């Protein structure tokens, strides 16, 4: 059985008996924790947001319809809402990244990871709007496949691919003067 198929069976079991949700909680706790920690960068806050994400998932589980997609993507969607609520009172959020985390993106847009390249990339990323940043983070920093990126954002897979390529083109455009 595939992981998504296995997830579907576990979800159905948890929908019938909420005590069975524990297996999904154990399976995805680390993933959701890391996903939120990449954004919040604070362990205690991340722990609270993770608990809140799983609580909301449990409460919404009766409405969840398994469609053969990883359950993780649905959890990430809830987690993104939680982090957005946490950020809601700020007009700007500072996201701290490390060179190693941005390498997949740097390579995709043709940068070789030198210090000045990364500084330019940080400036270019900072010019993106919320929706564009979200796409790049999910695809390159969280390393999700397009199918999951699409599920988290709530669009089709092809649309996710197209939008990501547009954002990459925008980033390349922003980087031109710094090359």
């Amino acid at each position, binding site marked *: 059985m595939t992981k998504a198929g296995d997830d579907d069976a576990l979800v159905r079991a948890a929908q019938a008996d909420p005590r069975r949700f524990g297996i999904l*909680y154990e399976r995805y706790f680390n993933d959701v924790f890391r996903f939120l920690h990449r954004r919040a960068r604070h362990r205690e806050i991340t722990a609270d947001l993770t608990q809140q994400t799983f609580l909301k998932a449990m409460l919404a589980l009766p409405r969840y319809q398994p469609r053969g997609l990883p359950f993780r993507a649905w959890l990430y969607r809830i987690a993104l809402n939680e982090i957005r609520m946490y950020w809601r009172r700020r007009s700007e959020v500072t996201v701290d990244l490390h060179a190693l985390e941005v390498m997949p993106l740097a390579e995709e847009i043709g940068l070789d990871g030198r210090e000045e390249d990364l500084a330019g990339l940080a400036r270019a990323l900072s010019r993106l709007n919320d929706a564009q940043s979200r796409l790049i983070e999910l695809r390159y920093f969280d390393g999700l496949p397009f199918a999951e990126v699409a599920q988290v954002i709530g669009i089709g897979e092809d649309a996710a691919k197209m939008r990501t390529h547009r954002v990459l083109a925008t980033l390349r455009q922003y980087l031109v003067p710094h090359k």
Partner: protein
Amino acid sequence: MKRHYRIAPGAPQPLTDAEIAAHRDGKRLMFNYHRALHRMHRRPLYRDPKSFLALLLIVLLAYLLSESAQKKREEHPIPDPTGQQP
């Protein structure tokens, strides 16, 4: 929400599974779930027949008391302490 990115050189301090596991608490999750479920399914007072009757009785009693007080004031008006006639 506007994001401001900063990229530091090197690799991030990785979170180990053990460090994350310290924050995992399935019992707390179940406790919070049952509490939230209880809150969600709690019927408002006005939808519970017994509470609704009690509420109605209280409102009726308050109305009757205010009416009787009003009647009493009309029958025995309080004299003006300055003694002036209107």
